[in-house]
């Protein structure tokens, strides 16, 4: 035992003797450290869905198209230009000055390989969406390709933006794809290349000196490290002690407080994310008050959106009345507007036969503060809310089992300025998606019809009609737009874009 104690104390002493070798992150060695709350477990965005992967993907990969942060319009990136030949044919000419991190030049073969891979490998995350509209891709020249569509598809550029171009053959051959080929090392086209990757811990990036510039421009900072730090408090501490220089998803309270330190800057800018309540108007979870439109309207009147947006979320956040962010394409604003009016809400409830209110299980998994605030507003008009705030896994399960009467959701539409993105996921045919609880097939027809044509005017009309129907029938309680908060150290310059999507390659030293 004595020997054991000696050994144990030896270990502890050794621990104290080891000099702290914290990765030095500063201007002097041109290394920026950014923190993500969620883990990066896979470098290949073609196999990922989360926001973090898009951000990383934009750093290490490139796509044919890209969103211009200023105009919120799709612009060519790897593509040099494009021609819409007809409703189902799009020709794309590629840039000729693009090289992979490995040094090889990008040609049409790589693009064709990538899309064929997406179409034939049913395991990748992009497959289902792309296969839905893309019939095939053909080579029209050394640096030009043609996309043949199954049907007209409006959100084409968003989907093309999400496909990261891979080197010909790098994922294997058809029927023999290796989903992990680019999981831990990546031969991308983006402004940064990966020098090391510790899954769940950190990704170390170095500027790709052969980067073609293009829409993203040339990054000013040479080295970048992205660390996974799950705890927001720990992230703050790291920022204060110089361990990281950049963190995002920072709420107003934390940001304002942190910004009191001269070492830290806080930006609370716009975001495409909106919050909303989805109500089971269709009665999928059984017979309950929410199937009555008066009750749903009452709920719309009951919530003081502006107060919560201003006081809780802050920044440019404001009330919304549509099932989409007002700034995106097709988001009709001329819809029925339910002003904050608790008395009217009570009257509507009474009219519906719920003068004494009713019990409501309200699920939520994000933004606990806002969830409590809106639950409080609902309870003030007599709806006895039992807030079920938990983890997404629990909500998913209940939603799939059709047990949910109402839930508080948010949608970020990451870097996708088109109503199609939010509509596609939320208003699908109920047989294919469990979020459309309207019980009205018309909504699905209108909201998904909007992406099935390239005619801009027709699209606007469809969305307008759909959004008006949603508002009129109060299938949702649209709540507010969110704002995106970023904390950065005072030695870097980071300017937030209007869509709230972080473009890390634009950061420069002060």
């Amino acid at each position, binding site marked *: 035992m004595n020997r054991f104690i000696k050994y144990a104390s030896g270990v502890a002493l050794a621990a104290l003797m080891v000099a702290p070798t914290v990765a030095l992150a500063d201007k002097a060695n041109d290394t920026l450290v950014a923190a993500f709350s969620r883990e990066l477990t896979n470098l290949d965005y073609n196999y990922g869905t989360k926001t973090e992967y898009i951000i990383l993907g934009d750093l290490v990969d490139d796509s044919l198209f890209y969103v211009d942060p200023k105009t919120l319009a799709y612009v060519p990136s790897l593509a040099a230009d494009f021609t819409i030949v007809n409703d189902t044919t799009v020709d794309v000419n590629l840039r000729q000055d693009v090289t992979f991190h490995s040094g090889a030049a990008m040609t049409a073969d790589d693009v064709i390989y990538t899309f064929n891979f997406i179409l034939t490998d*049913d395991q990748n995350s992009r497959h289902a969406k792309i296969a839905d509209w893309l019939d095939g891709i053909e080579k029209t020249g050394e640096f030009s390709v043609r996309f043949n569509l199954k049907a007209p598809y409006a959100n084409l550029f968003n989907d093309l933006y999400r496909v990261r171009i891979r080197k010909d053959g790098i994922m294997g051959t058809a029927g023999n794809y290796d989903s992990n080929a680019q999981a831990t090392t990546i031969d991308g086209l983006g402004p940064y290349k990966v020098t090391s990757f510790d899954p769940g811990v950190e990704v170390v990036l170095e500027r790709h000196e052969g980067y073609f510039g293009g829409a993203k421009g040339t990054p000013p900072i040479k080295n970048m490290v992205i660390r996974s730090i799950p705890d927001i408090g720990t992230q703050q501490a790291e920022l204060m002690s110089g361990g990281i220089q950049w963190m995002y998803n920072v709420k107003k309270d934390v940001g304002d407080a942190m910004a009191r330190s001269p070492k830290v800057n806080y930006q609370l800018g716009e975001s495409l994310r909106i919050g909303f309540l989805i109500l089971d108007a269709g009665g999928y979870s059984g017979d309950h008050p929410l199937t009555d439109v008066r009750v749903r309207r009452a709920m719309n009147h009951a919530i003081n959106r502006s107060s919560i947006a201003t006081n809780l979320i802050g920044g440019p956040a404001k009330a919304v009345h549509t099932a989409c962010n007002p700034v995106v394409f097709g988001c009709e604003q001329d819809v029925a507007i339910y002003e904050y009016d608790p008395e009217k809400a009570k009257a509507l409830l009474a009219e519906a036969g719920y003068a004494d209110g009713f019990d409501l299980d309200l699920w939520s998994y994000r933004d606990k503060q806002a969830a409590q605030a809106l639950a409080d507003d609902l309870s003030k008009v007599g709806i006895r809310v039992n807030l079920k705030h938990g983890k997404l896994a629990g909500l998913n399960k209940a939603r799939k089992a059709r047990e949910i009467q109402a839930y508080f959701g948010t949608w970020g539409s990451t870097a996708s300025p088109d109503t199609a993105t939010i509509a596609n996921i939320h208003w699908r045919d109920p047989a294919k998606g469990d979020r459309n609880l309207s019980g009205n097939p018309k909504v699905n027809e209108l909201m998904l019809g909007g992406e099935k044509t390239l005619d801009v005017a027709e699209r606007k009309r469809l969305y307008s009609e759909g959004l008006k129907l949603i508002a009129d029938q109060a299938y949702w309680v649209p709540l507010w737009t969110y704002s995106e908060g970023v904390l950065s150290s005072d030695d870097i310059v980071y300017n937030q874009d209007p869509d709230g999507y972080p473009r890390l390659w634009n950061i420069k030293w002060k």
Partner: protein
Amino acid sequence: MFRFIMSRLLVVVAVALALSVVAFFLLNLAVDPAQAIAGEEADLLEIEQIRQRYGFDRPLITRYFEWFSGVLHGDFGVSYYWNKPVGELLLERLPETITLALMSLSVTILVAIPLGCAAALNPNTFIDRMALGVAVSAQAIPNFWLGLMLIILLAVIYPIFPVSGDKTLYHFVLPAIVLGASSVPPVMRLMRTGLLEVMNADYIRTARSKGYYGWRLLIRHSLRNALLPVVSVLAVQLGHKFGGSVITESVFAINGLGRLALESILGADIPTVQILVFVFAFTFLALNLLADILNAYLDPRLRT
């Protein structure tokens, strides 16, 4: 000796088996792996496709036996969430957890044993009450709270230690203190009562009558006897540190098994959680067996 170890190993296997059954069915009922693989944006059709592709639509029992025969052949399955073999994942995360567990055990030993001895040798004095105060306090402080307080104090206000991460042993100091502190009360109390009991034992009176006193008495005649029960408790505590470092690892961003377990549950990554439950149970039982063997080494009565 051989028979004993074999019979104990049999229990270990039986327990691990029982737990794997419980864990498998509970997890599959609690979370939907198909939904988790499909991700937030997936629609029902896609989820249904995944369900068929991975075979989640088949009866749980069939899937359990498949999983189990895989484990028997050394195939621990592939994580849905991390997209890699679970075995690899474990090996990656194991060193961090072992480091943290051993360092926190060192903290426990270095604090609890001297404190327990001091308290037992000076019963009902100021020292004893101080030690009891430490025990009661450490018992009442939630470890996530202690972690946050230590970060504020020793990493931000006085930046002595790094806030988080697991690069060097230095990063493990604060988490080891947090995790070690939770084991101090039981170990210290046991050391105290054990030593008090030993000091009242007849053979200590014999030793005194032979002329032993003070530190010599403690070292030559009391410590070994008093440490016997402590060894078992330390094994249990070390076992808990392996499986129970979920919170500490996530507060300090240490990529060990605890955090892996937390993330895997949140990500409905059943293969990983399943193996982790197995690993935690096995570690716990193996440590207990080790403690029994160590006890037999220390206590001749258990040997013959």
